[in-house]
């Protein structure tokens, strides 16, 4: 019989006040926000109980900034070295996905079919981080629209806020779409990175029809490789974005997309 065991529990709270280029931060407690987080954690626990063979990390963030309050619950669910980042409402579906996906050993050639919303990670790095760093524009396909607004965000009260993405939603309008015969189907991504100094995007694929692999290409090469897309944006289960050591959840959606020439 599988059992759930709590391994770690952390509480952190604080207040940061900014005047010009100076921030005063302390671990002051806001009872209202702490209570909101406690309630959200209790709700998430009910979901965790159903994820029997997974290692789960639940993070609840309660914030108030300029009188706007928000509570965000994210769950990192890991099974056998594969993980997704999800929310309580999507956790069971994503848990099933983790059990369903399998690596295979197709040859590393042809196009890449970015299924399951995974193209959102590619665009998160190539489009979103490019915007954050205000780098020179590259030519994206005319059928692609990417909504990735930047707002001032910070991981904790101890951090300096940075302009960061809140979400990334890619949409296609009348994009071409022909399923290539020779292709690799990407289902889950282990991680990604964008280096503004080299303008190189790195994507570590965790699950694909060719097994795990790493791809490194410039933003311009990635933009030029986008050859087609189909359907509505699909939620990708999870992007925890790390920049300057600050980890933030970025909701990510993209339609099924095809890239050519990246392998």
């Amino acid at each position, binding site marked *: 019989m599988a059992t759930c*065991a*709590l*391994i*770690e*529990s*952390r*509480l*952190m*709270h*604080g207040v*940061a006040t900014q005047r010009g*280029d*100076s*921030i*005063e*931060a*302390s*671990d*002051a*407690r806001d009872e209202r926000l702490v209570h909101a987080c406690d309630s959200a954690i209790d709700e998430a626990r009910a979901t965790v109980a159903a994820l029997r063979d997974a290692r789960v990390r639940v993070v609840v963030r309660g914030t108030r900034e300029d009188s706007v309050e928000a509570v965000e619950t994210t769950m990192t669910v890991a099974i056998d070295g594969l993980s997704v980042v999800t929310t309580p409402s999507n956790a069971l579906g994503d848990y099933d996905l983790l059990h369903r996906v399998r690596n295979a050993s197709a040859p590393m050639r042809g196009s890449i079919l970015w299924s399951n919303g995974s193209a959102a990670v590619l665009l998160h790095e190539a489009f979103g981080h490019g915007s954050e760093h205000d780098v020179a524009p590259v030519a994206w396909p005319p059928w692609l629209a990417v909504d990735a607004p930047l707002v001032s965000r910070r991981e904790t*009260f*101890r*951090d*300096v806020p940075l302009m960061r993405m809140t979400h990334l939603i890619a949409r296609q309008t009348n994009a071409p779409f022909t399923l290539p015969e020779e292709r690799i189907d990407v289902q889950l991504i282990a991680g990604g990175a964008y280096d503004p*100094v*080299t303008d190189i995007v790195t994507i570590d694929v965790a699950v694909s029809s060719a097994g795990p692999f790493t791809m490194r290409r410039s933003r311009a090469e990635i933009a030029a490789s986008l050859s087609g897309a189909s359907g509505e944006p699909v939620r990708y289960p999870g992007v925890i974005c790390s920049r*300057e050591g600050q980890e933030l959840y970025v909701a990510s959606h993209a339609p099924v997309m095809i890239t050519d020439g990246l392998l």
Partner: protein
Amino acid sequence: MTEVYRKWGRAVRYENGTVIFVSEAGEAFEQDGVFQARPAVEEPAQTRVSVPPSARADLDAFVAETQVNVAQTLLSVRSGRIERFIASAGTATHETTGTEWTEESRRVHISLVNPPLRALIDLASFDVAIVSTIADALARAGEERKAPKRIRLAPNVSAALLPSLLGELAMEQTGGGFDGRGQPIETRAVTHDPPPNWYRPGYAVQPVRAWMNIRALPFGRIDPDAPLAVALLEPVHGTTLHVLCVDGDDVFPTTVDASHIAAVSRAEPVWYPHAGGSFGAEMML
């Protein structure tokens, strides 16, 4: 008995133009196999007497000093671009298992860029000479080259490598101070055995066994004419180093396998903030 760890601290960090002062107090303990960490509810950091009352004044002085250092650094790297400039200072009082101790810490992290290269600098205090040397070399860097047969590693480079050489190179743990569980750190040879001390980088982080303040024991002879790796261009991956190398008038990036150390300098090593602490001395591969 449950071992409770408490920490009260104040810190200031200069981060790319913004100064952030942080005061906090927290505690951590393990109960029934569950690691728990939380802010200390009873004694807010602002009123805790255990943090020396001079801490805030010291931190204010650090900010003023940092602003001067930033200005000097900006002048010294005119030829390059500073991508990231972080300097921090902190004072913390720790208490666990009946032991109470106070520590002060300072850290400087600078990344300099000359696309496509990025030099990483991590120091325990400002050293404008090191920053200036690296900035000058970075500005003159040419194309990537094959690693020279013999190469020296500057202390700031060798310090970052040492944690990857534990058990492979004769080293000792340098005694002094207390570890993350309040146990004294004693001088002893680094062996393959589990380290006797515990590293706890923050109260919300579960302590792990680690060798603290390691230093390589000197041996061999350094060839002063061998090319010198003055800076890391990437974080260390195992024993593979991507470094900025100076060979006479030539400066170039190169990748070296640092698994075999041919000599370690007898000069007094300098402490750098890598892992549980690492003393850098010139080495030769």
